[in-house]
């Protein structure tokens, strides 16, 4: 890419490639051959039909998420991140293209997927206590009582909330409420965990703690995580890979490999040179996206 004013010492590794798609030759995220990917998004398109005309939220997105990877989706505000996540989680049907999980087309919310929403206050059941909130999906699955109790205790322990099982969610702080939502997702034992800007509404310090919590849980469970955020620092700090989205109508701007060490630390990692380089690169791309630069223009110029 063109960044004459700053030459990074180590080049950022881009995993995106150019593919022929129904919308012409555009960049796509990293894809894998055959049966390898756990979650695969193919030429996904979403158009909203409104009285004022059609709104194309997502134009064409293609990328794969391998088993056990933690990938961050980052994009300027209004870049269709939530739309994309709703399509992936089966809450919304795409207008074209498809999402597959283990090769199976997603048509409704899949069993092996859990979603953590941004609005923790609205995603927890206010009439159920903390432990009951975590327990409900398990109860729904027909898990027996003793196993449920153990799973709930472990999940609450994992997010550091073992001391408040009997509280109501609304009696807790925002950060703690989001921990409850994470505990509920963890107890559900999903293969894919989708997180839709989960920390956008909590304060900076809580946010740092929660980021480390997500890294910890991801490592412990070996679950695949797709983490949507608008925070560039967060995406680089958390992910093994950052998928940068263009402005709406959305395509993939770039798919960047985050080659930071696996052990991350809020102080060490964030002050490392590589972190700065990656952050710089992602920031630059987002700025380009905001200005309306579209990768397909660059393709056309080549």
């Amino acid at each position, binding site marked *: 890419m063109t960044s004459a004013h700053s030459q990074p010492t180590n080049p950022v590794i881009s995993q995106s490639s150019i593919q022929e798609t129904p919308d012409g030759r555009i960049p796509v995220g990293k894809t894998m051959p055959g049966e390898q990917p756990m979650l695969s998004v193919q030429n996904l398109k979403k158009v909203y039909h409104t009285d004022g005309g059609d709104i194309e939220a997502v134009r064409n997105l293609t990328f794969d998420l391998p088993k056990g990877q933690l990938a961050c989706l980052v994009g300027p505000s209004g870049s269709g991140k939530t739309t994309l996540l*709703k399509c992936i*989680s*089966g*809450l919304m049907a795409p207008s074209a293209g498809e999402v597959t999980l283990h090769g199976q087309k997603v048509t*409704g*919310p899949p*069993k092996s*997927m*859990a*979603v953590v*929403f941004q*609005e923790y206050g*609205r*995603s927890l*059941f*206010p*009439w*159920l206590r903390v432990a009951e909130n975590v327990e*409900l*999906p398990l*109860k*729904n*699955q027909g898990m027996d009582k003793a196993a449920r109790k153990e799973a709930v205790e472990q999940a609450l322990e994992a997010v550091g909330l073992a001391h408040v099982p009997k509280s*109501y969610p*609304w*009696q807790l702080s925002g950060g703690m409420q989001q921990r409850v939502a994470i505990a509920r997702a963890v107890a*559900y034992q999903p293969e894919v965990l989708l997180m839709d800007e989960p920390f956008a509404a909590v304060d900076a310090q809580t946010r740092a703690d929660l980021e480390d919590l997500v890294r910890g849980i991801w490592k412990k469970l070996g679950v695949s995580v797709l983490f949507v955020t608008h925070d560039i620092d967060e995406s680089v700090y958390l992910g093994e890979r950052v998928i940068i989205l263009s402005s709406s109508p959305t395509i993939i701007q770039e798919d960047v490999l985050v080659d930071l060490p696996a052990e991350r630390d809020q102080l060490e990692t964030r002050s490392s040179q590589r972190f700065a380089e990656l952050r710089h690169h992602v920031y630059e791309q987002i700025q380009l996206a905001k200005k309306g630069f579209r990768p397909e223009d660059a393709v056309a110029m080549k």
Partner: protein
Amino acid sequence: MTYIRTFLHIVALPLILVLIWFVATLGEASFFVPTPQLLIETFFETWTSERFVSDVFPSLGRLMTGIALSILIGIVGGLLIGSFRWLRALLEPTLEFFRAIPPPVLIPVIMLLIGIGDEMKVSVIVLGAVWPILLNTIEGVRSMDEVLADTSRTYGMTKFNSVRYLILPSAMPQIMAGIRQSLSIALILMVISEMFASTEGLGFAIVQFQRSFAIPEMWSGIVLLGLIGVVLSFIFQLTERWVLGWYHGLREIEQSA
């Protein structure tokens, strides 16, 4: 200390009213307005023993049956109508029509159709008391939080569990508001239904007293109706505090924030 203060708040106005009444009826004795002493005396004479079993008991039974049926029909119907858009589109205009009909005008027709027994009286109560519950339940189901509904869907909640753990509790604040309105409607209709072709019941007894110029007895019946209303509302408040504890807690926190 706070208990004493609460108690004083509750009894202050009734005591003042009784005092005014006492002073106003001191000198001359009006035939139509008994003194407080006479009323209390008559109250116990009239409504204890025999009459309680023959009139109050059947009335209360029909009132409770009517309320229970209204709650059941209102909630089940409301859940169904609120859940299906097509059903709502189909029924809502018709429901508005039936809701607008005052149940007392239907009493003669109902008497012809199902007789003059308890069924008629309970039907009249239900026909009036079901509406606030039904319409509030529909509204409660419709105003479901989208994020919460999405959450339930992503966890693959079964139909039954969705109703039990999501839809019903989330509509409960509105349902309770509907029940509160229905209680007073049910009490009114209980009395009215007993004024037609009856041989027992509170409404019947009060009309009998009126027609036989037993004025203190008539007043004592009216007092009894008021007391039943107070007790109903008290039971309702206790139930509501228990069922909607989470809701009041949540509201308190939202308001203080």
